[in-house]
């Protein structure tokens, strides 16, 4: 009997050894494993959707770098909470440097989308999916990659070009920044591929994806940015053939009841009135602090007090401009009945049923932008021709303004920029428009002049707290953002931009 016991014991041991490794293989049952993903048509569609999903977050913070930093918006100064000083406020007051956390986030968010674009493109050939799906998905991914590199090169100048995912951390140390010209070559390659692959439109169930029109519009913008005006005109003129037109009512452009309309070329999609987590909440950032339910219609709800329209832009509207009331409000009536002169952006302010959950989409590219780009490009090539006036006045007409005529090339250039400012106000164009249309010294002077005005007469009360000496002093080098300190600390081979 005793021998038998030993035998049982030993065989139990052997049995347990043999079942060992399976016992130790555990994967997270709540998520998918990356190694096994990208295998089917459905996986591929979801990978593409995932990238669009990341854009929701990206567009949630773009106002900081494109509007807030310019003469369009400022902040509802918060004398109490100074915690945002070195972060958000550094952008407003041009105190940003390589350590500014928001610039770090901007840089990181671009590459965290890029890795999913690159992984999807790299894994796509092995996926079991029809060729037309693969082709369209490739077009979408290359559109977004072209967009991301265009963002990178405009914000940061020279950029690291990466088109395949790295397999080990060590590989990531091997990349260096490529010159601006090479980055633009990447942008052209990607956008041209996208123009080839993308459809002009989608069946209703897929509306929201990038179209050929979006790729052409973006490509036109790239040419315009590079002052390649003839190419810009040729590209943008293809967009005018695609059936887009201006809506007659400016307010309808931003109305969530009217998403993906005929003027919309590329719209970032959000959905409110449910808790599925794909909503927007722009007005919660933009509404005045301490408005306590007087702006956002929920008891006690205050806003962030960010991206506040400046007196400068408020005063820029002509008498009778229908866009002003849609785009902004100069203040609000508190629940106690007092007028509070704190302006706020009104474009993304619509009724919604759940606190913090709005239904507003973000207009990334729309037809009015195409018309104004065309006007700008034509003027640069041929001067203010009838065609250029036609495009500009189409915009003005909708705004309820008189057409303009008889301008010099210079004056027309100024008029287009002024029109862009108001037509596309608070839609994240201003910073790039200023950079595109001005030389660095011009831009420095322009911003510092604005800074002096804002210092002399702040848009909102500072409650007795003076400006810091370094507030609103814009220097040449700040035209290009710094490469975040963290990236250079991690990999000292990465070069910093001059001046930082």
């Amino acid at each position: 009997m005793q021998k038998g016991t030993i035998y049982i014991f030993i065989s139990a041991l052997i049995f347990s050894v043999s079942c060992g490794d399976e016992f130790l293989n555990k994967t997270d049952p709540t998520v998918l494993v990356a190694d096994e993903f990208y295998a089917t048509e459905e996986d591929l569609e979801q990978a593409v959707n995932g990238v669009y999903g990341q854009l929701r977050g990206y567009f949630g913070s773009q106002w900081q770098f494109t509007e807030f930093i310019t003469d369009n918006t400022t902040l509802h100064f918060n004398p109490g909470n100074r915690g945002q000083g070195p972060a958000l406020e550094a952008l407003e007051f041009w105190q940003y440097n390589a350590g500014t956390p928001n610039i770090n986030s901007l840089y990181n968010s671009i590459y965290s989308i890029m890795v999913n674009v690159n992984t999807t493109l790299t894994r796509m050939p092995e996926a079991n999916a029809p060729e037309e799906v693969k082709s369209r998905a490739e077009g979408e991914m290359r559109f977004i990659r072209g967009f991301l590199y265009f963002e990178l090169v405009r914000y940061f100048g020279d950029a690291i070009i990466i088109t395949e995912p790295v397999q080990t951390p060590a590989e990531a140390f091997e990349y260096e920044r490529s010159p601006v010209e090479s980055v633009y070559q990447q942008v052209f390659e990607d956008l041209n591929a996208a123009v080839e692959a993308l459809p002009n439109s989608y069946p209703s169930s897929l509306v929201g994806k990038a179209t050929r029109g979006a790729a052409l519009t973006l490509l036109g913008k790239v040419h315009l940015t590079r002052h390649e005006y003839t190419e810009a005109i040729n590209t943008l003129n293809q967009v005018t053939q695609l059936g887009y037109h201006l809506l007659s009512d400016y307010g309808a452009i931003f109305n969530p009841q009217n998403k993906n309309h005929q003027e919309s070329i590329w719209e970032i999609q959000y959905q409110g009135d449910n808790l599925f987590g794909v909503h927007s909440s722009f007005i919660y950032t933009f509404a005045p602090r301490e408005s306590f339910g007087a702006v956002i219609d929920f008891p006690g709800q205050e806003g962030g007090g960010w991206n506040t329209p400046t007196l400068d832009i408020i005063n820029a509207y002509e008498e009778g401009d229908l866009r002003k009331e849609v785009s902004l409000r100069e203040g609000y009536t508190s629940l106690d009945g007092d007028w509070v002169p704190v302006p706020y952006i009104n474009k993304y302010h619509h009724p919604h049923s759940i606190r913090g959950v709005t239904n507003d989409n973000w207009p990334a590219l729309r037809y009015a932008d195409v018309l104004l780009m065309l006007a700008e490009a034509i003027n640069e090539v041929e001067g203010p021709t009838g065609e250029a006036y036609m495009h500009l006045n189409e915009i003005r007409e909708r705004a309820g303004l008189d057409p303009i005529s008889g301008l010099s090339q210079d004056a027309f250039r100024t008029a287009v920029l002024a029109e862009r400012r108001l037509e596309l106000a608070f839609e994240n164009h201003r910073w790039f428009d200023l950079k595109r249309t001005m030389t660095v010294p011009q831009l420095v002077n322009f911003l510092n002049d604005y800074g002096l005005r804002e210092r002399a007469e702040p848009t909102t009360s500072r409650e007795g707290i003076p400006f810091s000496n370094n507030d609103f002093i814009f220097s040449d080098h700040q035209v290009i953002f710094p490469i975040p300190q963290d990236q250079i600390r991690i990999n000292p081979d990465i070069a910093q931009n001059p001046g930082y």
Partner: protein
Amino acid sequence: MLNVYTPKIPLLMGFFYLFSLTLGFAQEAGMIKGTVISAEDAEPLPGVSVLVKGTNRGTVTNIDGEFELEAASGETLTVSFIGFETTEIGVNPGQTVYEISMQASMGDLGEVVVMGYGSQRRADITSAVSVINMDNIGDVPTTNVSRLLQGQAAGVQVRQNSGRPGEEMEVTVRGLGSLGAGSQPLYVVDGFPIGTTLGQNLNPADIESITVLKDAASTAIYGARGSNGVILITTKNAQEGKVGLEFVVNHGMTNVPDGRRTRMMDGPEFARFKHESFVDRIRYFEQREPSLDEIPEEFRFPEQTQISTDWFQEIMNQNARFSNYNATLTAGTGDIRSLVSVGYVNQEGAVINTGFERFNVRANIDGKINDFLTMGWNIAASHSREDYAPTDGRGALIGRSLWADPRFPVYNEDGSFNTFIGGTHGVFGTANVVQELHEMERTLEINNVLTNGFLEFTFLKDFKFRSQVNATLNQAGRKEYRPSTLAGPGFNQPPPREATLMQNNNESLNIATDQLLSYSKFIGPHRIDGLLGYSAQQENTKILQGNGTEFPNDQTRYLSSAIQQTSNSSEFGWSLLAYFARANYSYNDKYLFSASWRREGSSRFGANNKWGNFPAFSAGWRISEEDFMPQANWITDLKVRASYGVTGNNAIGNYSALSNMRISNYVLGGDIANGQVLANFANANLGWEQSQQTDIGLDFAMFDNRLVFTAEYYNRLTQDMLLSVEMPVISGFTQSLDNVGLVRNRGVELALDYRTRINQLNLRSNLNVTINRNKVLEIRGDADAIWSGGFYSTYNVSVPGRPMSMFHGFRMMGIFNTEEEIDNWPTQDGAIPGTYKYYDANGDGEISYDIQDMVEIGNPHPAMLLGYTIGGDYKNFDFNFMFTGAFNYDVYRNIEATTLNMDGVFNILQEGVDRWRSPENPGNGWIATSNTWKWQRESNSRYVYDASHVWLRNVTLGYTIPQNPIIPSARLFFSAENLFLFTSFPGSNPEVNQRGGINIGVDDEAYPIPRTFTLGANIRF
């Protein structure tokens, strides 16, 4: 098999026969006398206790070792004395004079100590092991077993982070070992490794013994969970041959002492502060004298401020009750011994409407089935309910009770709650903390079953095979309801809000099985013990959570009433497999050797590194047994020992080695479109964090074990730590988990036990001293550093060459008094008179508003820890005093960074009245101006304090009621917990460590540590 028993039956009957015979003779009592001598040298022993067993008749021997007392024949004398084996002598008919000779006891040396997967005679142990002396703990009013470890063992740091009822204390063995994974020890209850937390459901009254395994030789048998020490807890069972019933009742009350409260400005003081800050700002920035109407009306006449609310005081629960009941029935007669215990504890919190309540039942049974088969089964079940509140941190209740505007009342004139506090003129608005504690429903209910059983089979004389199965089932249900009447949880969110509800159900099942084959043999002077084992364990947790918002009313607080509902569920788990072996060999009880080896596989590691090896060796030499040692009778035992071993740490996430997808949905065609993106960077090479530990120890017992001294030196090197390592973001991620770094913990531990008897006073004392030095030797590269925390909320920084997690910040050199001083100082952009003057660490002439000029400003690691217990008894009285101490370490006081930055959005520490106001009125030279916030709020040395302290943790005084026919044994006791704190630290708790992990030593204001007084009784039948 029954025939095995048959020969014994007559024997047993014979025993009963003899027994009844003895009883029969027990009749008349008479005076007997005698002498007690030492068996070794025949010298008389004074002070020996002689007691007639089962009665209260007893005496003590005189200076010549003589005694005299009344005893009847048939009765038994129990003769006991410290350092000697207790002896029993029968009183024979007719014999009136006795000479009793006492053997020096083996004392602790003969004691059997619970070790990993077995036990060992203390004399044979060759590794670093601390056994908690349960006598030294006192009758502590505690709900958590972790409290029993406090101050009792060298090398074991037990921090009480907060006074939350039911709170588990934070235990660290031999310093912080890991930069990335956890540093908590492994808890093993009755042989069952339950994990790195004890939870809240084990009943302290059920604990028989606690052993702390400290060095690698003792912990390597636990492999990948052994790096941070192992704490073995054994629950009680009946004593052999005894049947008993014990009741313990303990009642008391709890208060937060005045001296441990943080003082804030009162209403008029705060109004004056706001008034003056308006005046000072106009004076400084506009260089003029302000008129009175430039000051907001509410601050214009601060002395007329009507209301002054001390919010902290308002949320204190005065005389909170503590009650604890335990009943234990034990039966140790026969082959099977058993224990059944029932416990109930109810602890009201020191903060109103918080508290902890628990019911425990336990049944332990073990014994012989036959000569070669023994079995045992323990089962413990508990139910606990906690009314909790998020108390810790600036945004939580304690923080808010400190910074809430004191000029607002708790109640409106009609008696209803004032629902929104502050929110005017830049002062942050917050919910009323009293109302929140009354109206918010926050409960955590835990049902726990912990069970383990074994079957042990003895065969071939020297072999044993033991098969053990362990399981714990834990179900925790959490509910939080925030009614619409409350202001929002953030700043400036006045009511009404949408009501919110969260309900969470968390179920986990942890199962382990061990198969152990052991061999034990004496061959002449050789003693051999061997162990072969196999262990498998897995844990699986399922979580179901529902959230609701917008309720039609505040009465129906269930998800079904919510207009908006979301739900989610998840599941996770891990598994491990291990094979292990151990051999102990001793020669002549003089030369001792031990070696162990474990091979362990874990589901948590990468495909290429699933398995790890953990060997250990140790040796000891009992010098006192050597012939060359003079047979000096004061040396009882002298042993030197050394050990080396490798252990691991698998306290990382469950699926860290894999790259997973995460959901990133979009909207297409107006509908949700499912989307997935990469969630993390994969590292298939992820492997084991390893610690190599060397330990040298000395055990020295003297004067018949009256004085026992233990000294240890250890050196633990932890390498290949599982750490998030930064990588270029072009990879798509900013970090990935990798095996990097090297951390050393080395130190000295001293423990001194002394027991003596002075006349009728028995005294025992224990002193333990821990000196640990922690140093990061390597992270990834030379220039690498791990920064955690924040610019405004304390940086803990680990850099090679320094201890882990040192405080970093600006070095505050004083306060700028004039513009001239600012001009003569390196540039501090935006500095004005009254702001802090910081040190230009990099010497570039500018103090930049980032981390470049930040330097080390404090060390959160105590240079020395101390535990001291003195206890004893005198006649029927007994006492126990326990002290803990920690010396020469720093705590960062975040409430100062929050309020002494003087921005006036919060109420301010009372000392803020002495702030800088002008060059002529610079205050106490230590508190900044209210004219700005910059250069006042950043992580800096101004807010770092030495937190050295000594705490009189517990005083227990007891009185044993003389035996009487109704109650054979009864003892009354008084216990005072957290009685006195001696420290210069200005905060409420020098042990505070809410952030935990590598963010140690930051005081964010936590649930205060109350003082508890209890009265209790312990009755035995």
